[in-house]
């Protein structure tokens, strides 16, 4: 299991568009990926669940990857977040 945290810097937070991009990125890995905030936890491959987190700028996201390609998933998703969030 690989875990990392990321603080959202995008002023709009995790709104619909980045949520969609995140889901697409997560779907590229076979590992199970979850994203959580203080308020809740979501399967990163499910857009409604991710959007329901209503994560805002300044909030910390904890991302957990578990599965055969967890190393690659964690590295890839961290890079994704740095670029898009």
């Amino acid at each position, binding site marked *: 299991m690989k875990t990392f945290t990321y603080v959202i810097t995008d002023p709009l937070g995790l709104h*619909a568009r980045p949520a969609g991009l995140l889901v697409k990125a997560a779907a590229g890995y076979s590992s199970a990926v979850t994203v959580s905030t203080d308020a809740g936890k979501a399967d990163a491959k499910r857009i*409604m669940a991710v*959007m329901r987190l*209503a994560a*805002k700028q300044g909030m910390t996201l904890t991302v957990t990857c578990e599965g055969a390609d967890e190393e690659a998933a964690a590295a890839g998703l961290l890079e994704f977040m740095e670029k898009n969030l």
Partner: protein
Amino acid sequence: MKQGTGLSVYSGVAIGPAVVYRKTRHTAQAVRGTPEEEQKKFEQACGTAKEQLSRLYEQAKQTVGEEHAAIIEVQMLMLEDLDYLEGVAEEIAAGEAAAEAALNCGEMMAQMFASLDDEYMKARSADIRDASRRVSDILSGAEEFQLPEGSFLLAAEDLSPSETIQLPRERILAFVTRQGSSSSHTAILARTLNIPSLVQADIDLDEVEACQILAVDGFTGQWFTDPDTETLEALLEKQAQAAASREALEAYRGKASVTPLGKKVLLCGNIGSPEDAVFAMKGDAEGIGLMRSEFLYLGRDSLPTEEELFNAYRQVAQTMEGRPVVVRTLDIGADKQADYLNLEKEENPALGLRGLRLCLEREDIFRPQIRAIYRASAYGKLHIMFPMVASVWELSKAKQMCNQIRRELIRDGYAVGDVPIGVMVETPAAAVIADELAKEADFFSVGTNDLTQYTLAVDRQNAHIGDFYDPYHPALMRLLAWIAKCAKEAGIWAGICGELGADPKLTEKFIEMGYTELSMAPGKILETRKLICESKV
């Protein structure tokens, strides 16, 4: 000829053939197959829906821009969501028809979003409903709505966001809906497109379908089916006049507001809600000279949260794309009562605990608003303006609070812009001590409505003494000249944001006095710019 009325959301006259947009009716009797068959039908329909949305997305990108088209993109993603797909599969497995299952699950998710404590996410519930309805429509064999060639007036019960977005806007002459409000999507679109439109119209859609010609008068809020010759002629005349005067003013769009002698004036819009900023832009406003905050507080049963306020101010800042935006802090008091504030009843609310006075006493009201403005200042050129200032100490104290809040936000890592702090000069006291206030304030904006009422001791609400309410009174003119002079000497700018700001009889006079900003209803901006460009000052 039949006629009736509706609530006009945009002025103008439109005459032409009518098209009735009807929501596709569901043929609930569609043959229901085995769960396996239904599941297969659902998957096919989902595919078709995504194809439709993808075409729509490309179309919308061209016509309304990528940002608005994102609504469609989100809908595509929703149809790929596992929670949704699994939910539908479960219902189908339990014996539900595909069309119903698609609709039910969409509704369930929409309600979940509607209950979120986040305005942006709440609004997404309409998108979810839209997307699932599309799938369900395909399943029940409903055709996509087909529009005729050429221009037409569109009549409907109501129009949803995705319905309005896929309309060929260049061919629509007017909207007439039986439902909707002045802030509904249709109304917003009508104003954006500058087409006359009615909502809440008492119109029979079957009659519209049967008529040859539908006419809408957005000036009076009237509609006519198959108007008689006399009515038609009057409408055509009105239409020609409106077009001619609008056309003449269009020459001033995008031009600088500069007098022949080179005096530059900033022409701004007054707005009452974040959505209005779009119309300010349409009206060619060079900024927002007065954004009222009251609408955010009235008509509800608790104080708006910092987050709600922040989103509202941010929206305006972003819409105005770097143009200055002056936010007036809450001016609420016993006259515009919001019950949850628990304000005591007053004999004389116009002279009571209101405006900045209330804010200085009630930090629970003031603090979230100021925090929200500072946070939103990262997105544009926001200004803070205090209403109902009478003494220098009030301004100093409020400024002190603002600075403290600003420091806290910076300490907590928020991006905060430079936010000038100014005074809405509307009490005679503030006008008289303008020289003192100018040392503390970054700008002045004169609220002429209240300044007139207080200076002349004439109640604006009292119709019996209306004759004594004289906005051209020499006392007022002297105060106005003095305020501008004090501002100039202190090196700060002064503007006018009351009704007089758009008074053509005073435009030149204000410029002569030294005012460099005038703020008004967005629709008046081009007219006033014309006056400025043709003035003699």
